[in-house]
């Protein structure tokens, strides 16, 4: 299902897109890193993660991974990994295809590269075009890259489990441009934590069949349907909107509109919900703060009333102060001519 098309059909198109400048730059950088059979990439990798293995020479294997369809490519990749591990040398797999089960259905993933070490270790390589300036890069971008690599590690582990003497490295290699140049530099990122988190989240995901089973008969997300029908269909899958969704999900603007219409306090941020205890709607909170609803013995309600009273008092005192200041200014203004006259 294409959520972007669905969002457009619902009248809240997703504002995502990639600039062709960024796209071209990313591709050009990746091509540069992998030029000459990946010599530069392997040099960086050996420098940082080589261990006791011999340095990669010109005889690095770069198996051909092309095959028909994602299943075919994934099978080809698994075979290449097995062969390379058995061969006991260095091998560079350019854009391998990996499969991972997400919520009961297979998802295909394509890491930038996977390197097989002579000792049977497999290392995921992520090539990104954001710069590493003075050996440090934007933390949020590195975090995103680490999460992405952790998924690849998980997918690789499935293949490694059925391959003799194979082991997936928990440390991945992040390759970025150095400073303001296009020379590659690399850094080792430990993704154990991200891997554990992703793994846990994957096991907790509700299976797609279970979600589908909970839907009313005949529900369809076909974008050609009238928008009211679509609207009802989307509403049948309960969303859990939070502002963080805006950066990730094509349907976020749709969910936000629904969430705001319901007056849900989460639309202002997850932390807001935590602060307000059992009160979940804007109207409910404001009524409680104004003393119209709610149990005064509830600590949240009591704190809200206190906050409302303090806020009102402060705003009032500021208004009085400003009115005084205004009056003083006008009095001073009126007084000037007389004062000036007295001076003369």
């Amino acid at each position: 299902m294409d959520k972007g098309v669905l969002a457009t059909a619902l009248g809240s198109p997703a504002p995502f897109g990639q600039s062709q400048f960024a796209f071209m730059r990313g591709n050009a950088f990746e091509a540069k890193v992998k030029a000459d059979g990946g010599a530069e990439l392997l040099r960086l990798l050996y420098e940082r993660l080589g261990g006791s293995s011999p340095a990669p020479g010109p005889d690095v294997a770069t198996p051909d991974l092309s095959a028909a369809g994602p299943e075919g490519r994934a099978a080809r990749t698994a075979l290449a990994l097995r062969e390379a591990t058995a061969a006991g040398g260095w091998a560079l797999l350019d854009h391998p295809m990996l499969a991972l089960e997400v919520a009961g259905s297979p998802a295909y993933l394509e890491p930038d590269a996977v390197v097989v070490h002579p000792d049977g270790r497999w290392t995921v390589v992520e090539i990104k075009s954001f710069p590493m300036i003075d050996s440090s890069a934007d933390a949020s971008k590195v975090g995103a890259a680490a999460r992405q690599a952790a998924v690849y590690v998980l997918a690789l582990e499935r293949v490694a489990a059925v391959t003799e003497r194979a082991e997936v490295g928990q440390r991945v290699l992040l390759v970025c441009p150095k400073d303001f140049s296009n020379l590659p530099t690399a850094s080792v990122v430990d993704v154990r934590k991200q891997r554990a988190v992703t793994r846990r989240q994957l096991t907790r995901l509700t299976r797609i069949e279970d979600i589908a089973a909970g839907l009313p008969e005949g529900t369809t997300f076909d974008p050609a349907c009238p928008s009211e029908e679509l609207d009802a269909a989307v509403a049948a899958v309960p969303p859990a909107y939070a502002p963080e969704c805006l950066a990730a999900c094509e349907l976020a603007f749709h969910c936000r509109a629904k969430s705001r219409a319901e007056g849900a306090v989460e639309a202002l941020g997850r932390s807001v919900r935590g602060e307000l205890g059992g009160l979940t709607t804007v109207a409910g909170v404001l009524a409680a703060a104004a003393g119209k609803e709610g149990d005064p013995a509830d600590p949240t309600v009591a704190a809200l009333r206190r906050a409302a009273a303090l806020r009102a008092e402060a705003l009032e005192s500021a208004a009085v102060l400003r009115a005084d200041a205004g009056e003083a200014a006008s009095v001073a203004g009126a007084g000037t001519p007389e004062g000036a006259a007295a001076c003369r």
Partner: protein
Amino acid sequence: MSLITTLARLEAVDSGRAQPLATVRHRHLTDRPLVLVPLTTAGEAGAPLGALVGTDREAPRLLAVAQPRDRDLRFAFLAELAEAVLPHIESYADVVEPAERNETDPATGKKTKVEVELCTDAGQLIVPSRAGVEFVRLLGRSMRFRRTAEDDPDTPYPAPARVPLLGRWLTHYGERARVPGSSLLLTATDLLNRHWATGQSSLEDQHLGALLSWIDPPAGSSGAEAALRAELARDGEGQLLCPPAGPATDPDFDNRLLAPAIERYDRARTALASAEDGLAADARLGELSGAEREIRSLLARVMLPTWDAVWRGLDLLRELPEGSRAEDRWTRDRWSFTAHRDRVRSGEPPQPRRDDAVTAAQKLASRETAQAQLEAQEALDDPLVLAGRRLAGEAFLGTVTDVEMTYTESKRPSPRPLVTVRTDERPHLGERTKVYRSLEGKPQTAEFVRAEEEPDQDGDVLLVLRILDRMGRGKEPAPGSVPEPGDRIAWTLFEHDQRGGPKLPDPEETPWTHGGPPGADAATRAEQPDPVTPEDLL
């Protein structure tokens, strides 16, 4: 986010308009701030695309790079930026007033007062958003190690003369922006977010257009509707009506308008280079400048709405009276500005790529102090901020009901009056907890003695405080220094002035736990310019 801020946000949702979070302006604004709206090329680290810069809202200066991958054009842009920014900064550098500074005499170790210059005002820089501050830092980093032909005649790609200097100033501004409460480099979004609560999340508040829509919605429209329009509305060509405040551009703008325009420019340039006679060259030069004009007008089109939005934001902020202690923080900014001016004038090398351990520790400590000071000063300046602290039990407002004189039991008794205060608040007071009030702008200290056991029917309690200082040297307290019955006073549990922590060692004395003293090569290494490659950008 405190509960009182959350409440303001909910009120904003309900009323469809942003609600005040402050009753005074907590940041100093100079009469003539320099507004900078930068744009960068997507995917490139140090490739600016264009900028609007200036102190006159009616006459921004448009700088544009027709082909961001061309080093010469980028250098031309940076040189032009230096011409726009440096005269502004330098116009403040020579207007000085005498001031005194405490310095430790290295020979005797005694503290002495030294007469120094302090700039009476400093150049203020305003960018639209936080990403803009990061971009200023990035520009500073990319420029300050460059070598000009004058520095080194053999340098392969010499930078224009004033570019490294601009890099040093932008680095200083970017670094200063990390000090809480500083106003040398401000962002329009942070300024507005400090003073108003909108009915959207803080994530969405980073969108300058949406933020302004909440604070000052157009007539007949609610903040939420106007904000949605600012976020999503597109014109017939599919371009955003309210383009992102930069430095990143909208991908649709890049793909549909900018990329074809840059391609035309490239074609015109190739055609000009291959022109065979003067007549053809003239015609092709015309094409080239036409293509360049087109790029400039495209960039102006996406930057102008942001430029106007920044100035509109400044207008809104100027409607608030400035908090009385904001001036004090601005003085610190002036000191920082003057110190950097002195470093540049004395020929010191550019700021190093990485701070050494001692400098880093000093910066952290001073930022922590600045943060605590900012929080205290904002609360003292603004009843609305104080209300938040009162809600948290960190301050309370009370009416003095009784004053009883007591004295210390030393040879020369000093006054220690006991003040009874009636309040309906429940501050977190323990025995001998220090509380402070502002007396003629200076903090007066008191300590908590005891509380009456039971609140009365109005929920009021009586608290007894002992005043400890600021009563003069005599046996009798100086007039006006002791509260009188009937006075309504705000007491805080936090200190008004922050004292810095213990002194840090000199860099030569860096302990081994922090990497030890810097090696002999550290100074020379820091100064090395970035190595340049024939094509340093893709």
